[in-house]
């Protein structure tokens, strides 16, 4: 249907969700269902001397208490694997249930299964675990110090990996001859994803069939099935069905394969009953993979004209107690490779040390490596603007990759396919009324009052649409990064799409129906979109890395194109024309130059299934499957501007304005795209101002609940001002790039740059996130 692409069609997902009829995992109940509660370590590091479950087992309604012994007795692999390998990566064992040593608060030591969830919780409290507490280290820098407690015996010095990209020598040379240099020591604060639906699983083992159906909170059911069967439960892959029903947000946290889901699967196998487990918020905060947690030294060299000549980055990145699914990739290939930002930088070197700590594992969280890289680059650019005297706008402009330089090969492996950075900056300046704001700032500074304003920029790049399989494979991925789409045109010309992209709030069903409707010239209402079920969808890599439109959507487009090609052959036969002479437009096959000789999609679809009057060399049916493997990442970019007011007497910060100009390529549904940006902005602003996963020295998670971990609330935030430029992606059939992570990638630097800008008269050039009033006040008063 014409005009369906680029239109804000209301979401088809919503009617169920606004009436309470959407079914999330915990909403599901099946006959005979029991409930699990997991017993977790209260210590960051301890030896388990013994477990006495007798008091729990004695409680009426308790069905079983399982420990590591039961995992061993079951004869299953029983581990949680890592899915991305780096050279010389240390991969210590991660048992589903800790056998003799616990390595973070929340590590599972036993599981109780009972007839109802209240009894299961009561019983979990009665499992007596005899711990011998050991010294722990939670801080990523302290973990590298001599004599730090070892997280794993087979990872000396707590080093998981030592990785670098770029050329150290050319960077050293750039610094040796630099006219200006700026440098920074910064922390990128550890974050807890906080999908508002806690992780949950309902595992239903069928001993007769030897099969299991697992409903769970998953962003990628097929990946979960693979890891669950191969490494944890040892069941044949074809005997396990994983279904992701409604999923209440993920932001990365529901990509990873966790011990808990496998433990519940084991419980169901042992008891031959359906077993459900739903994490409490505390549990999900202790076990969902956290994000970020870097300590970084970085520096930028510039020539006398303010052009960048070199960038040096040295980062220590926390892995937590075990290597989570894609953890090693996040601070390396999704971080070091982004260090060129939007800039033409002739020499870059980035060195990263991955470090084990006695904390919850760290893995991909919205943006995954790219927010950390953007924060490094854009904080340095702010300082470069100050040091060179060029200011934040001119220093960026002067270093932007020129629009005629694309494709642009960076010094850190990535080749940007397209870009045009100036117009996004221009538009952002226009929206924000930049000159007036600077006048206002100058006048407030002149008046010397306690309320100063600051203006902060972030001109970000991201690599998303993950990713060419051969490329990620050569970098250590133990998975491909294509996506599948099976598009079936029914005899009545309605369509069902089976996609491997599994939605968890993004609105795939709406967006994907628009892609099909546009390409096939039909009403989006005639398109059904099926996802999130390994029995229905043949394989899928899932939803993460802003890949669903660019990779999953492209797979759908490819399948539709194949259907049109086949339809042309059928129509040519029926119209007694040559297939080469046929065109497809607005739902009809037409003979070029003879507009009266045409057949509708419905006529052709019906014939495809009747096959009564049909080409000899063609199979019946009208469906097509594609496995789309992109040829490159996509490279969304934009410029964000944040305006804050800082109370220099109390240290409190008020957001005044936030303008974002993003270029995410072609837009399928503007309403959904804007919504993705809003959500990403809230999370990035949250990181900058409030959010912080804090561990004390003994490894206790101090901010483990919503009482202490400050997820942004509605009164903390403001309405956002958004606009777009459009530079289509040149290498996928839709020209789309991806938008899920842009807000979270760009905004931390914009906010911090704004606050630092406000405090420039105090000689402050950096404050670590989150910028709490206390930290700001201390900086002003030091």
């Amino acid at each position, binding site marked *: 249907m014409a005009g369906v692409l680029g239109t804000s069609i209301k979401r088809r997902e*919503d009617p169920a969700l606004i009436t*309470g009829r959407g079914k999330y995992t915990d909403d599901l109940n099946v006959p005979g269902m029991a409930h699990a509660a997991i017993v977790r370590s209260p210590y960051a590091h301890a030896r388990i001397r013994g477990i006495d479950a007798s008091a729990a087992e004695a409680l009426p309604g308790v069905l079983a208490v399982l420990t590591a012994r039961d995992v061993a007795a079951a004869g299953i692999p029983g581990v949680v694997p890592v899915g991305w390998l780096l050279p010389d990566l240390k991969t210590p064992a991660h048992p589903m249930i800790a056998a003799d040593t616990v390595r973070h608060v929340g590590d599972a030591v036993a599981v109780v299964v009972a007839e109802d969830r209240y009894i299961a919780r009561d019983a979990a409290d009665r499992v007596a675990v005899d711990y011998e507490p050991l010294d722990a280290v939670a801080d990523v820098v302290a973990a590298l110090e001599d004599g730090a407690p070892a997280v794993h015996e087979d990872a000396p010095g707590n080093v998981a990996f030592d990785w670098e990209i770029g050329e150290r020598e050319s960077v050293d040379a750039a610094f040796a001859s630099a006219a200006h240099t700026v440098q920074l020591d910064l922390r990128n604060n550890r974050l807890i994803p906080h999908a508002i639906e806690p992780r949950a699983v309902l595992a239903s083992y069928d001993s007769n069939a030897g099969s299991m159906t697992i409903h769970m909170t998953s962003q990628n059911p097929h990946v979960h099935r693979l890891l669950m069967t191969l490494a944890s439960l040892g069941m044949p892959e074809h005997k396990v069905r994983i279904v992701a029903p409604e999923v209440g947000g993920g932001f990365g946290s529901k990509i990873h394969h966790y011990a808990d889901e496998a433990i519940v699967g084991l419980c169901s196998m042992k008891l031959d009953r359906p077993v459900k487990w739903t994490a409490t918020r505390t549990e999900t905060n202790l076990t969902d993979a956290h994000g970020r947690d870097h300590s970084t030294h970085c520096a930028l060299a510039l020539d006398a004209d303010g052009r960048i000549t070199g960038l040096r980055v040295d980062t220590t990145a926390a892995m937590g107690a075990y290597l989570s699914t894609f953890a090693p990739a996040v601070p390396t290939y999704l971080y070091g490779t982004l260090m060129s930002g939007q800039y033409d930088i002739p020499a870059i070197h980035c060195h990263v040390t991955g470090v084990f700590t006695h904390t919850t594992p760290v893995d991909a969280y919205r943006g995954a490596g790219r927010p950390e890289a953007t924060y490094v680059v854009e904080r340095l650019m702010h300082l470069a603007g100050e040091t060179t005297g060029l200011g934040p706008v001119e220093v960026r402009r002067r270093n932007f990759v020129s629009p005629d330089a694309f494709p642009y090969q960076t010094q850190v492996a990535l080749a940007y396919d397209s870009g045009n950075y100036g117009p996004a900056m221009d538009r952002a300046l226009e929206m924000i009324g930049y000159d007036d704001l600077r006048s206002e700032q100058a006048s407030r500074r002149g008046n010397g009052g306690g309320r100063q304003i600051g203006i902060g920029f972030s001109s970000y790049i991201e690599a998303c649409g993950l990713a060419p399989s051969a490329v990620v494979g050569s970098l250590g991925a133990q998975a491909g990064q294509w996506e599948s789409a099976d598009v079936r045109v029914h005899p009545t010309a309605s369509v069902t799409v089976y996609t491997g992209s599994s939605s968890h709030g993004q609105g795939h069903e709406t967006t994907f129906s628009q892609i099909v409707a546009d390409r096939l010239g039909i009403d989006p209402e005639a398109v059904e979109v099926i996802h999130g079920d390994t029995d229905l969808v043949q394989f899928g890599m899932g939803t993460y890395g802003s890949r669903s439109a660019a990779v999953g959507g492209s797979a759908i487009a490819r399948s539709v194109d194949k259907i049109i090609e086949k339809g042309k052959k059928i129509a040519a036969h029926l119209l007694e024309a040559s297939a080469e002479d046929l065109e497809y437009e607005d739902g009809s096959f037409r003979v070029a130059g003879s507009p009266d000789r045409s057949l509708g999609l419905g006529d052709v679809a019906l014939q495809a299934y009747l096959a009564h009057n049909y080409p000899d060399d063609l199979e019946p049916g009208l469906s097509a499957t594609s496995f789309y493997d992109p040829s490159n990442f996509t490279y969304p970019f934009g410029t964000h501007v944040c305006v804050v007011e800082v109370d220099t007497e109390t240290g409190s910060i008020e957001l005044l304005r936030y303008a974002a100009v993003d270029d995410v390529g072609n837009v399928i549904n503007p309403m959904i795209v804007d919504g993705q940006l809003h*959500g990403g902005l809230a999370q990035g602003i949250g990181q900058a101002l409030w959010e912080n996963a804090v561990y004390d020295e003994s490894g206790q998670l101090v901010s483990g609940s919503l009482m202490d971990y400050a997820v942004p609330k509605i*009164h903390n935030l403001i*309405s956002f001002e958004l606009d777009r430029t459009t530079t289509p992606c040149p290498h996928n059939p839709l020209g789309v790039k991806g938008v899920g992570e842009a807000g979270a990638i760009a905004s931390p630097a914009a906010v911090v740059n704004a606050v630092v800008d406000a405090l420039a008269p105090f000689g402050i050039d950096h404050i670590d996130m989150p910028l709490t009033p206390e930290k700001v006040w201390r900086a002003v008063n030091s």
Partner: protein
Amino acid sequence: MTVSIQLEVNGKPVQAAVEPRRLLVHFLREDLGLTGANIGCETSLCGACTVLVDGNAVKSCTMLAAQADGASVTTIEGLAQNGELHPLQEGFWEKHGLQCGYCTPGMILSANYLLTQNQNPNDEEIREGLKGNICRCTGYHNIVEAVKYAAERMS
């Protein structure tokens, strides 16, 4: 041990015998099958479990089912009348006020309470009125728009 309770849920009388410690949210979700009220935390902070109890927005994870004896409870399932969406439900759909939808029932019921107290709230009053409900997806921008849409429709 159980206690007997009688209450009205979405306009229908309900009688039950519940464990004294049973939370209202578990009673609604598991005993009555009204799974629209969701559980997102255990500290009464996220608001996903918000329902109306005698017209007041209440976090049903912080109230015992036994305390609802004699009360009139409205859950998200009871908000649409005669097959017509409530203006707030329309507003959230129209203005893209939800993504994953997990916080949405609670958000809509809190907004419903807000609009009974203030029929024409401005942005700041909407933000103040909904600060007991956390949404991790939308950045709240469109939730404010959705509530304004509903207020306009209802006036």
